[in-house]
């Protein structure tokens, strides 16, 4: 949605090579990001700051223990890189702005919203997606518990929930009902599978995952 004014504004931004949306995304990169392609450096607040893009650069990732390479613009999110570059589509794009949890993956074992992490930031870290939970054709206990407790209907929120539940249970092996309600309130389901999800977590917590 833009009116004439913002149109002009975007154009100016375009000319400088960075649109407003890109700027928002770029501005969250810290200097500590391991850099694969040599960035330009600019002086900002008296310090040399590396600047990427707007063009594509080579990036490298470790996803589910495997190495992946791609040529990506710095504005590309981890979620889009997973889905569009590497065809790893378990994590879903739903809100694309950290509101629903459908894109949940683990970075160094911590759950994150992949839609709100830039791909460039995920370099040099261990990215784990729902696809890796199943081992040798056997479902992870939390996945099996989802099946047993009918915790997915359309299933679009399910991969995000499964990853979030795994991370949650790793941290809270014996959660109370209250822990579950709070710990998993960062994921949303439209079909209303929360009842099954609660039962699934209870099943795993009882057995010990």
């Amino acid at each position: 949605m833009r009116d004439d004014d913002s149109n002009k504004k975007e154009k100016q931004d375009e000319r400088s090579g960075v649109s407003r949306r890109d700027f928002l995304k770029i501005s969250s990169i810290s200097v500590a990001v391991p850099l694969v392609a040599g960035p330009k450096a600019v002086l900002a607040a008296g310090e040399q700051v590396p600047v990427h893009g707007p063009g594509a650069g080579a990036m490298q990732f470790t996803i589910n223990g495997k190495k992946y390479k791609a040529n990506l613009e710095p504005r590309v999110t981890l979620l889009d890189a997973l889905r569009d570059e590497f065809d790893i589509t378990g994590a879903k794009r739903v809100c694309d702005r950290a509101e629903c949890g459908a894109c949940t993956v683990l970075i160094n074992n911590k759950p994150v919203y992949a839609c709100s992490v830039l791909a460039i930031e995920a370099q040099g870290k261990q990215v784990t997606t729902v696809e890796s939970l199943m081992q040798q054709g056997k479902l992870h206990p939390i996945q099996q518990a989802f099946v047993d407790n009918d915790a997915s209907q359309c299933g679009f929120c399910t991969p995000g929930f499964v990853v979030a539940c795994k991370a949650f249970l790793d941290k809270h092996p014996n959660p109370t009902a209250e822990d579950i309600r709070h710990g998993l309130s960062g994921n949303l389901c439209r079909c209303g599978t929360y009842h099954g999800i609660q039962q699934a977590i209870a099943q795993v917590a009882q057995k010990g995952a």
Partner: protein
Amino acid sequence: MPDYSWPDAGHRTLIGKRISRVDSPVKVSGQAKYTYDVKRPGLLFGKILRCPYAHAKVISIDTSAAEKMPGVKAVHIIQKSNSTIHWAGDEIVAVAAVDEPTAEDAIRSIEVKYQKLPHLVSDAEPPKGAAEAQGPISMDDIDEMLDNQVPPRQMVEQIQQYGITSKPEEETLNGLKEDGATDDVINAIRAATVHPEEGTRPKSNYQKAAAQTVGDGEKAFAQAEVSSEGLYGAPVITHCCLESHGSTSEWTDNDHLLVHMSTQNVSGIAGQMAELLKVPATNIRVHQDHIGGGFGSKFGPDRWGIATAEISKKADGKPVRIMLERDSELKVAGARPSAYARVKVGAKKDGTIVAWQSESWGTGGPGGGGMPPIPYVLSIPNQRKEHTAIRNNIGPARAWRAPNHPQAAVITMCALDDLAAKLNMDPLEFFLKNIELATKDRQNTYREELGIASDLMGWKQKWHPRGQNASGNVVRGVGLSMHTWGGRGHASDCDLTLHPDGSVDIKLGTQDIGTGTRTTILIVAADTLGIPMDGIKLYIGDTLYPPSGGSGGSTTPGGVSSSTRRAAVDARDALFAKVAPALNAQPDDLESVNGTVRVKSNPSKSLSWKEACSKLGAMPVTVRGKNPDKSKPPDLTNSGVGGVSMAEVEVDTDTGVVKAKKMVAVQDCGLIIDLKMAESSCYGALIMGISYALFEEKVMDQTTGRMLNPNMEYYRLAGLNDIPELVVHMMTGKGYDERGVIGLGEPPVISPGAAISNAVANAIGVRVPFLPLTPDRVLAALSQKAGA
């Protein structure tokens, strides 16, 4: 004549049991491929430029910069200069590029000039004396309705009610057809009365329908000893499917199109696209493995779906994907119409309801919106009803899970609950007392269900006269509501093939929208053939397979289970005919149980399923089962269910925050195929009910005409933290099973809103008129009560 009827309880091996969904493993492991996940070779990414104004004329479109941009493969104007736009977010131009960022850049480079026009995005009570006159309809009006995606049923009603301005040429009718007019609409135009002298009809935003009366309202109110008046309603909400609407289209050659689409209507999409793309429907293949929610909003290809095919054509047939962004999904991809009403209800002192009077209004966007079925469930003997549909610029409405029923439940059940309060009656007793106003066939069901729900809720202990609470700022209350739905099975064809090696495959052009259609089909087939479910390969979600109806209105379970049952019985009997000589028996003395075909009277005479199938000879046997099929009785599906919801809530009278504490659903749906999935449907519906009762509303900005909350932060869905204790009870056994299969998608979602509203009124002693019951509304009601 083979016996197609459903096996009785003693002979069901799978039907009615608790069985895990067959597609859960692929869903929990992230392997299930949704339309959003389909990545075809050479995929181009499509994006849409949308109009920022709620009502405007397109003056000029300049796409030259986009066209020159490296990486942009096609630019396609969806609505040309001079088009009138009727809602913010409507589609203007689509582009396709090698990646998404480039497509976004291209969209940003397009310059569109608009002339803004005055808009209306409010659905507040129509002003008294608003222009309501309605003249006959011109062919331009019809064109505009098509453009505005007015549902065909509504168009037919209007054409029948108002007539047309002139008899159209055949050519004009063909044009309308091309623009998407259905046969029903064309037939209505042909049959319409022509009123040329009345000229063009006024374009009022308000369409008032003629008053409807039953019995004698005036007299009945005079006789009513107690009456109650109030304001009730439910706002426009969105579907908010987690997988947004969208598709990927590619031309596999000059005139063959392959479409992957997120749809509730696989078999029906090709025909809809064919007319617009001017290729035969048989040249269009539609495929879908999984869909991330539809809830009634995904029956057509939509403008953006047609655009994928158009842009693909411009881009040498390359696959083009357009999936809506979240904001567009909430703005333009469907909404549930609002409905509000001023209601007066009257009863005798003993609680017998005698009269109903309502002035209702609501909007379904550009198409207006009809009156919900009020009074709901109970046919009150004397009624007077008026309804005004508001046509406005909030965007098109679509069917939303149980179309019109949740609104009807809120208006009716809340008005009646207020009347019960005025009578100083427990609403449970009040509804039971009036249950004879429900349709005869369901009265016992409601009685039984109310009793069971009451026990499960602990109603007797929890109910208290309105507002009479233990002291304190946190107060509790309980409420209830009843509902009904049809749910008869739709048309469905099923091909079942037995192979000589014992393998079985089944093909239906149906879809599993998260309601467990795959599992339903496999349970029915495996139960009938006497083999395990994993011995059957099931193929659905493709126009290559026999057509099955769209998944709407809870019609799928009845449809696919009936066609599958008939196919499986015929296939089994064909097998028995071949096997009988080998077992030295008559075919009808055979049965197939637990993977063996055996002689009923002498079960030791048997063959394994595999051995039995080897008797088929060299060729597989394929049979087609159909629904409906009068030649193969009995009718295996049925229509008409009853259900009850009860809610217990806690309200903080300082903050106005409502929390659901416990919800109960008691539901019948005829013969249940899978008890586990049936219960899930009800749990999900209760949760969705909590969501629309407490949080959901499409909020429009009156000044800009845009939606203010097109995201998932401010368009709030219930989360895990909002979910209380949930109790579900399915009605089964005698009186239910023998009715045949009836769908369950809609009914349990109807009542929770009304039940929660009633529980809040019970807790705080005053009605909060409109859903959602947000803290500001609760506080406003409380302060009104304090002031009264």
